[in-house]
């Protein structure tokens, strides 16, 4: 969004850039080269629906049933890497232990309401993807609370949740995204009316099992050091 804090720090020095020009030319970045999709959506903190964040997902398929995504706060050059999301099929979701299922959220509402979209992708192609995504579950962790105006990634990781019904998303957030990307959520909602969600319905334990979830830090004693021969 428009008023994000800038990351503090002196501008990059020429010598530093030169090294990185070399590395980016010579090295190959295979895991990252698999990233081939940009999805835009909204997340909120798993303990606080009133704190909502625009989330740009850059996704790679590990296989047909699993994606791993880097989440940035925007689509541009200086976007901050703020989190990760894993997206899995219903089939994989059902293999998770019950306690784990609570940490995952459903995508059905986000897709059917139109608020989850792929910038610059024509509607019919986007819809083929959306048909898959709306049956999946996601697990999202953010490390940088930009909505608090943090200019550095402070504090603990934050489990995030996704929108599950009308009335949750702030109108201003929605309108700002619609304007900047030239999309209409209402229009897409109509186009996506016939998409269907997980075959077994949204699992009752997903989405926190309906409860809030918070991550806390605990100090632990270090185990004794191993001796390497």
């Amino acid at each position, binding site marked *: 969004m428009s008023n994000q804090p800038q990351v503090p720090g002196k501008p990059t020095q020429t010598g*530093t850039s030169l*090294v990185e020009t070399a590395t980016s030319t010579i090295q190959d970045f295979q895991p990252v080269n698999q990233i081939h999709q940009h999805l835009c959506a909204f997340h909120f903190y798993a303990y606080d629906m009133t704190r909502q964040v625009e989330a740009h997902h850059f996704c790679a398929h590990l296989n*047909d049933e699993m994606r791993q995504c880097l989440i940035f706060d925007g689509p541009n*050059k200086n976007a901050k890497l703020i989190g990760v999301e894993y997206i899995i099929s219903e089939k994989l979701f059902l293999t998770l232990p019950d306690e784990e299922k609570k940490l995952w959220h459903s995508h059905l509402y986000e897709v059917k309401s139109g608020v989850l979209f792929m910038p610059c992708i024509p509607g019919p192609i986007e819809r083929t993807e959306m048909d898959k995504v709306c049956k999946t579950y996601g697990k999202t962790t953010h490390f940088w609370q930009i909505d608090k105006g943090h200019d550095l990634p402070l504090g603990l990781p934050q*489990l995030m949740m996704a929108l599950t*019904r*009308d009335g949750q998303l702030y109108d201003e957030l929605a309108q700002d995204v619609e304007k900047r990307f030239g999309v209409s959520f209402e229009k897409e909602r109509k186009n996506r009316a016939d998409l269907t969600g997980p075959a077994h319905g949204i699992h009752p334990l997903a989405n926190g099992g309906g409860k809030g979830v918070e*991550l806390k830090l*605990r100090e632990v004693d270090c185990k004794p050091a191993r001796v390497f021969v």
Partner: protein
Amino acid sequence: MASSDQSPAPTPAQGTDPTPHGQPMTMGQHVIDKGAAMMQSLTPVKQISQHVCTFASYSHDMSRQIETHHYITRQNQEFLQCAVYDAEDKKAHLIGVEYIISDRLFETLNEEEQKLWHSHAYEIKSGLWVNPRIPEMIGQPELENLAKTYGKFWCTWQVDRGDKLPMGAPALMMSPQGVKLGKIDPELVKKRDDKYNISTEAIQKSRLEIEEPEWINPQADYWKQHGKGFAIDIEETEMKLRAPFP
């Protein structure tokens, strides 16, 4: 719920085979992906400018050590953001994120925050941190700067314990250090060296001249002075709402 220092309940999502569950990609999906990649600029990902291979350990159990592959974007002279994977090939798992900041920025953090960070001087001087396939002399000019930085690394997928899917709470990671718990298993290092046909020992010698930072903040590498690591717990709580949920 599965805290970062607890193993998740046994399920098909765990096991000895590290390949993730799931059907292989269909041709149709490949076509969609190629098409999308052509139409979308994917700009933030295009900013990634270097690949580093190094090692890390879990702060709640430093005997668990992993080889990591960082894909790094520089925001400015004092800040780097890294997408971290467990390997460098197409099938690598995205296992977490690390942020790297200058010592100047580190000193602006409060003490509670500083505990979550680790120093990089040893990791770099020891030759553990390398840019694969980049001749040492190209990478070296930057190492003196990097040796003064601090990192904060959260791991979201504990592949090394057999998780076929990312389970439980994120785990805080620590960096290699020259003493006790910070020492990396030589077998792990050898395996890495053989893969890239390098010698960490030789690289260490070539980095002797790199200046050590004058001082490393004792709040970083918290285990060193305090004998404590950190785990993350997952707690159920009341969600603050503005509309019904779910």
